C-alpha cells in the first residue's frame, strides 16, 4: 500500500496489525507522535489525516491507502515553526513535553474545525455559530491529556495562535 506522510509518498508492505502510530515510529523513524496509552484515551499520538486530527494508535495503517498524513515533523515549513509550535514555546505550553506533539497536532485540527463553524459540547446553542474562547478550547482539547498539568499554558498558547 502507499500513503503520503509529510508530503512524501511511501510504498510499504505491512503486517495488517500495524497501527499508523507504529508505522510512523518503528518503520519510518518519525518518533514525534508518542505512544501514551495505545487505546485512544490520551491523545499523545494525535496526527492529521487528510487534514483532520485523529488518534494514530487506533488507525490500522493498511486502511490508509492514498491518504495524506501530517505529523509534528511535517508542520514546520522551510525551517520556520508552525504558529502553534511557536506559541507553545512562547507560552511555555509544556513541562516534560511528552504530550506536546499530540497537543499541537490536535490544536491544528481543532482550530480548523472551529474555523469551519463546528460546535462543541461547550457551545451553549448548537444552532448558532460558536465563538472560540478559553472554555471552548478546553472542551475541544479534552482528548489530549497532560499529566504535568500544563493546561493553563497550553490554553494560552492556543489562544495566542488563534489570535484571541
Amino acid at each position: 500500500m502507499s500513503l503520503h506522510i509529510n508530503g512524501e509518498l511511501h510504498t510499504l508492505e505491512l503486517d495488517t496489525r500495524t497501527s499508523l502510530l507504529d508505522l510512523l515510529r518503528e518503520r519510518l523513524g518519525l518518533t514525534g507522535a508518542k505512544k501514551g496509552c495505545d487505546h485512544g484515551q490520551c491523545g499523545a499520538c494525535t496526527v492529521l489525516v487528510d487534514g483532520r486530527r485523529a488518534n494514530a494508535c487506533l488507525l490500522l495503517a493498511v486502511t490508509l491507502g492514498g491518504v495524506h498524513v501530517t505529523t509534528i515533523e511535517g508542520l514546520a515549513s522551510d525551517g520556520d515553526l508552525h504558529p502553534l509550535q511557536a506559541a507553545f514555546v512562547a507560552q511555555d505550553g509544556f513541562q516534560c513535553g511528552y504530550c506536546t506533539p499530540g497537543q499541537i497536532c490536535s490544536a491544528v485540527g481543532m482550530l480548523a474545525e472551529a474555523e469551519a463553524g463546528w460546535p462543541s459540547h461547550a457551545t451553549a446553542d448548537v444552532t448558532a455559530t460558536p465563538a472560540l474562547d478559553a472554555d471552548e478550547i478546553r472542551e475541544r482539547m479534552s482528548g489530549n491529556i497532560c499529566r504535568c498539568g500544563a493546561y493553563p499554558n497550553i490554553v494560552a498558547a492556543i489562544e495566542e495562535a488563534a489570535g484571541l
Partner: protein
Amino acid sequence: MRPFRYERAADEPGAVAAVAEPGAKFLGGGTNLVDLMRLGVESPSLLVDVSRLPFDRIEPLKGGGLRIGAGVRNSELAADSRIRERYPALAEALLAGASGQLRNLATTGGNLMQRTRCPYFQDVTMPCNKREPGSGCPAVEGEHRNLAILGHSEHCVATHPSDMAVALAAFDATVRVVSPEGPRDIPLVEFHRLPGDEPQRDTVLGDGELIVAVDLPALPLAALSRYRKVRERASFAFALVSVAAALEVADGRVVDVRIAFGGLAHRPWRATVAEQTLRGEVAGPEAFVAAADAELAAARPLRDNAYKVDLARAALVQTLEELAA
C-alpha cells in the same frame, strides 16, 4: 493482537459477500473494534473495511426526514446544520461523546455497534457472559457502580455506551440494513437487545447484515430538544446517566414529548411510560417528577448503583424544565 486478513470492500454487495466468511467482521472507523482487538476481546480472522463505501452523505427523505449514511463520521453529523437545527439533541449527544479526534474517525454505523465498556467485558482474564457465554458475570456482585438499573438479567448487567443512540431512540429513528436477502428497516429502539440469557448478542442484527443508513423521520418537536449527560468529569467520559428529550407545550400543557435515557440499560432506554404519563398534563415540576417516577418504578438497582435512580430522575426533571422554560 491476533493476525487477520484485510479486505477493502468495493461496493455494498461485495462487502456483504466478503463478511459471509466465518470469523469476518466489518470495519468502520475502528475506534472501538481496533481497541478490542488489541485487548484480545475481539479476534476476527478477516476485516472487511466498509469505511470507504459511498455511505458518507446526509440526504433528505421524502416527508421531511433525513437519511444519515452509515459512514458519516460523528464529527460531521454533529456539525451538519440540518441536524443542529432540526434535531439539536442529536448534535448535543454526539458532541458529548468521546473526543474531537475520536469523533473524526467514528462512524454512525460503528457508533451503534460499539460494545459495552463494562470493565469485566474488556478484561480477558475475567469471566464475562457477553464475551464468553456461560462463564459467569462477576459484575453482579463486583464493580457495578456504572452499570445497569433497568432491564438487566442475572447473566449481564452491562450498559450500552452510546450517546448518539440515545438521541436517535428518542427521535424514532430506524436503522437500514442489507444482507443477501435484501434490505430491511429496524426501529432503533428495537435494534439493541436486553441481555436476557443471551448477553453475547448486543443487537438484533443477523450474521452478515450491514448497516447502510440511519433514517430520522420528520419530527417537528425535535427542534426543541436537549441532551443532558451526567458523568464523573466535565468531558471525555462515558455517561453515568444521560437524557435525550423533546417537548411540545401549548397553553401550559404537554402536547407531545419524547424521552430516552442512556447509561441505565443494555440498550438506549426509551421512556414510553414517562411520555404517556406526561401527555396532557400541566408542564411543570410536579408532572415531570411524576413522569420520572413512573418510568423508574421498573428500576432494579444493584448494590452500589441505586444513586442512578435519583440521578436519572433529577436529570430528566431538569431537562424538561429547561425545555418548558
